[in-house]
């Protein structure tokens, strides 16, 4: 399997960077949640890559748990977005500054 490990890590880093860029630059709460999912995928790639390298299934089991947590997180996050839209009529996080003081 001649995929150099650094290449998988670089792929993971780039995917994570795209996610960070999305969180920092987009103001739409739904897009921000999607970017968080991208970052979780990057973390999963790292788990699997290092687990494969150390000949251990723990990395893959951890990736499965990460996916489960991501599913719960996105369900609650989208419910928050729905409640936000019902109460404030917006999903743009710039327009939600009620706690800004």
């Amino acid at each position: 399997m001649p995929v150099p490990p650094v290449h998988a890590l670089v792929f993971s880093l780039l995917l994570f960077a795209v996610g960070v860029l999305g969180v920092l630059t987009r103001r739409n709460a739904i897009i921000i949640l999607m970017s968080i999912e991208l970052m979780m995928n990057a973390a999963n790639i790292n788990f699997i890559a290092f687990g494969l390298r150390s000949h251990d299934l723990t990395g893959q089991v951890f990736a499965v748990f990460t996916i489960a947590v991501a599913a719960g997180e996105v369900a609650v996050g989208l419910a928050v977005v729905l409640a936000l839209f019902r109460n404030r009529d917006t999903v743009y996080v710039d327009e939600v500054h009620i706690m800004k003081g």
Partner: protein
Amino acid sequence: MTPAAVVFYILASLALLSAVMVIWSRNVVHSAIYLVLTFLCVAGVYIVLRAEFVAAVQVLVYAGGIVVLFLFVIMLVNLAGTLGPRVRVHATVSAIVGCAAVALLLYVSASGGLDTDFGARIDLSAQGGNLQAVGWALYSDYLLPFEIASLLLLVAMIGAIVLARQKY
């Protein structure tokens, strides 16, 4: 390069391209579609990295469940064609995060801990992949975390229902 490596590079670049399109496209529905493409490509990368079980879970949960949830919420909030601002670069934060990540990667690769090939010692002889092995691990060594994860999902489900209710 072996076929597996070629597949890895193709899938990785496709995943990165569609990930960029997720945050670049101004239509939220297009973002969701590109998100499906990203998840499927990452699932292919998992298969190349000998993680068939995680690839199957990725397709089922991410591409099948989470994206459908995203699409439902996009339809419910109905932004009515309001295209938000495309990007707004926070230059300082971006520079700090980017430099930190690149420095970390350079440090790890320069310290020589990553110079072996993937799969050099992994058992590739299993016919059906490692589905059975991961299943055994989940139900023996990781039984308690597995049950706690199901509890977490239950809590998340109740929380989502309470948060998204019409009347409080």
